[in-house]
């Protein structure tokens, strides 16, 4: 789960491995905010699978790659 300057860098880094998914750092910031922002809350409870899947879905991270187990 790394940051890159461009698709060219990702392709070189993969060295022929099957690519995963690439998203903008702006979408990643939104994802990080929704996924982690409650992590230090005094009344924190674990997210359910459905809650986490909803976070992914609402950001357009859909399809088999983004489907949680």
């Amino acid at each position, binding site marked *: *789960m790394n*940051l890159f300057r461009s698709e060219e860098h990702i392709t070189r880094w993969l060295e022929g491995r099957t690519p995963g998914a690439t998203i903008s750092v702006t979408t990643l910031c939104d994802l990080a905010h929704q996924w982690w922002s409650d992590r230090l809350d005094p009344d924190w409870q674990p997210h359910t699978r459905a809650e986490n899947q909803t976070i992914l879905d609402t950001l357009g991270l859909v399809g088999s790659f983004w489907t949680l187990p």
Partner: protein
Amino acid sequence: MDDVDLAIRGLTYAWFVEHGEAPTAQELAAHAHHPVAEIRAAWWRLHEDHALVLLPGSGEIQMANPFSALPTPYKVEAGGRSWYGSCAWDALGICAALRVDGTITTTCPDCDDPIEVAVRNHAPDDPTLLFHCLVPAAHWWDDIAFT
């Protein structure tokens, strides 16, 4: 996850925030006035529930996501303090969890060029950067350290 485990989890995270690094089981036991065996047992249950990650073999903390106990390529600076995230997502997650603006410094995994991204109000200052996730979501916890 019962109230005792949640309380020990909360103390673990608070230590990370305050000290910038993970507590050892001994340190947290002394801090919390709990037997160290109770700390280790709670950490193991939290590990099993994916609420934190223990170092294989040692029983000490490897990650309390988004915080990493070990130095990583993803350093986060915020408010004059610093932490490590396990990956780019976690690094940004540290700013989100702390609810502060911050700066993530790393290097390109391909060419080793430095990359710095400042986050202000949940938005990056360089929106051209890309994030690549190699492992599908269904397998993130198969080997979370690799993921």
